[in-house]
């Protein structure tokens, strides 16, 4: 049984928009996502959905951190 605080940290980490790059250049999955069980992954999905909505609402252009991350890659920024 995983410690509740450690689980919460994994959910929050997986709910962020940062993702590692794969050696071939693709977008890799978050290590924290792999450490969660199915219920934790579902929880992370819900937290992600809400986070992106809030981020978009806070952004003057209506862009979430997912959109910002993708645009940064397209525009050639790390």
């Amino acid at each position: 049984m995983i410690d509740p605080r450690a689980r919460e940290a994994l959910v929050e980490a997986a709910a962020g928009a940062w993702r590692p790059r794969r050696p071939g250049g693709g977008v890799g999955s978050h290590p924290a996502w792999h450490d969660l069980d199915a219920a934790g992954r579902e929880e992370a999905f819900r937290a992600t959905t809400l986070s992106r909505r809030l981020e978009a609402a806070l952004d003057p252009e209506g862009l979430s951190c997912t959109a910002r991350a993708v645009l940064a890659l397209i525009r050639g920024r790390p």
Partner: protein
Amino acid sequence: MADLDHHLPAIAAGDDQAYARWLAGAEPELRAALRTFAATADTEAVLQEALLRLWQVAPRFTPDGRPNALLRFAVRTARNLALDEVRRNGHSASLEAGVLELEALGRDDAPEGPDPLLRRLILRCRERLARKPRLALDARLAAGGAESDALLSARLGMKLNTFLQNVGRARKALAECLRRGGVAVEETRP
């Protein structure tokens, strides 16, 4: 939802600002379309990869004449990538679910773009956040997904777990503040 295909000619011509406007409208539907993969694939990674590939193929994309052709194509691309990821993770899945949802992406009169009332309210809510949750939230917003939480927390002088706790507190406090302001924010569907 609004038909976002009016951005398509500019996107196909390589206009990343037009792609940004399309993304602002399309992302919630795309994420919702990956809902069924939540436990078997990292849908955030899948979505970002799908959006990168979509940008690459957009100049060669031919719309089918129905509203939101690019969005429907994006949903199919994202679901196929999710299936690959599911198999890589050792699970089984099929694409049968969700075909009807694709048909529902037709045009209606919904306005496109950020909701100014929601933005005003959420900015007020952010002002009311406690200091540490606000610092954590602002760090994530400023990074725009380009920097890891380990980097952001180190910059703020917070332990990683404390930083992540504060991110969660900020999200819950914002959602609660919005709810008190009359805006219900669901966790399942943006």
